[in-house]
């Protein structure tokens, strides 16, 4: 079949995003969740207009392709993702671009902070076991699980300023 003329092809936008998670997520699960959330928010007809598709995902950052008229809807879809397979996540959009090359150059070349696994008992501001450190952020598994149950998360989040002994 003869390919479509360039002027007749669909115009796309590429939305770069960052994924914050408690446990790592696979690209396959993320794609399924984006499709499910888009369908739940906009229905089959809406999803067909969005033309949303995950182009790349490396575990923490990725690119979503969509129709150029429906970027805010795709941002709403990404914002509506709170869990992937019972694992709490947060998808933050970094920016939008017209080509994959520009999106990678502008938004995806920022180096991610390395997440280190640690094991240290803390008492301030909450008593529990510190398990992860990423930049200034520390995740703690508390002894008292009431707070994490209420917030529906696995860890209590503190910073180095909250507990200077962990530097």
């Amino acid at each position, binding site marked *: 079949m003869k390919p479509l003329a360039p002027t007749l092809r669909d115009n796309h936008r590429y939305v770069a995003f960052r994924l*914050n998670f*408690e446990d790592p997520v696979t690209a396959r699960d993320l794609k399924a969740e984006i499709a499910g959330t888009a369908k*739940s*928010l906009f229905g089959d007809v809406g999803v067909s207009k969005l033309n949303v598709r995950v182009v790349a995902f490396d575990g923490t950052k990725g690119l979503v392709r969509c129709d150029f008229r429906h970027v*805010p*809807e795709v*941002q*709403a879809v*990404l*914002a*509506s*993702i*709170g*869990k992937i397979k019972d694992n*709490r*996540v*947060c998808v*933050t*959009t970094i920016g939008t671009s017209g080509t994959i090359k520009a999106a990678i150059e502008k938004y995806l070349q920022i180096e991610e902070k390395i997440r280190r696994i640690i094991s240290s008992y803390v008492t301030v*501001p*909450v008593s529990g076991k510190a398990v992860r450190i990423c930049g*200034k*952020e520390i995740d703690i598994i508390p002894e008292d699980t009431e*707070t*994490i149950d*209420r*917030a*529906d*998360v696995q*860890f*209590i*989040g*503190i*910073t180095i*300023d*909250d507990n200077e002994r962990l530097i």
Partner: protein
Amino acid sequence: MHIYVDIGVHAFPEGADTPKRLNLTAYGLGFSQIVVTAHSPYWAQFPDSSLPLGVEIVAATVRDLRKQIAYFRDISTVVSVHGGDERINRAACKDDRVDVLMHPERGKHSGINQVTAKLAEKNEVALGFSLDYFWKTEELERSRFLAFQRRNVSLCQKFGVQVIVTSGAYSHLDLRSPRQLKALARLLLLTDGEADIALSKVPLNIIKRRAQKKEARL
């Protein structure tokens, strides 16, 4: 450039993250400031008095609500009321000591009618739209809240009631960037301009007005 503020964030010990962690994440997302608000039953558990702390009053009766407003109005940065019950919604809108009525739609109905909207406009009580249900609830419940909030937004637009948009976060995973909150606000039929005002001008005015009121009373 707008200064974005989120005034409906819940921190440790009520939520899962300390205020500093929430601040760090919110700053990275593009917020200039967040105001940690504690539900009134957890207020006593916040020992750090240097923190600008707002309150979200949870009251079972109108009498209890008035009592709590009188107690909190001088000591908190923002006085908001946990909505849902229609009597509480109406009493909150009637009281000019209240800054924000949060999520009035979290009951059986949308929680606001034309009478309540007019009262809110008269007493400068802003309506708080907490968007956490987008990522915390499933299809049916989400569509129900969305329908209620859309109805409330149209009432606010008609009667000139101030609106604020918040993430209602209990942890850093619940925080969303201003751009994402604006994208979600579009689904409530708020325009981009209105969403910008709801995320920047209105919360800043509320904080400023509350500080002036506190100063005037002291």
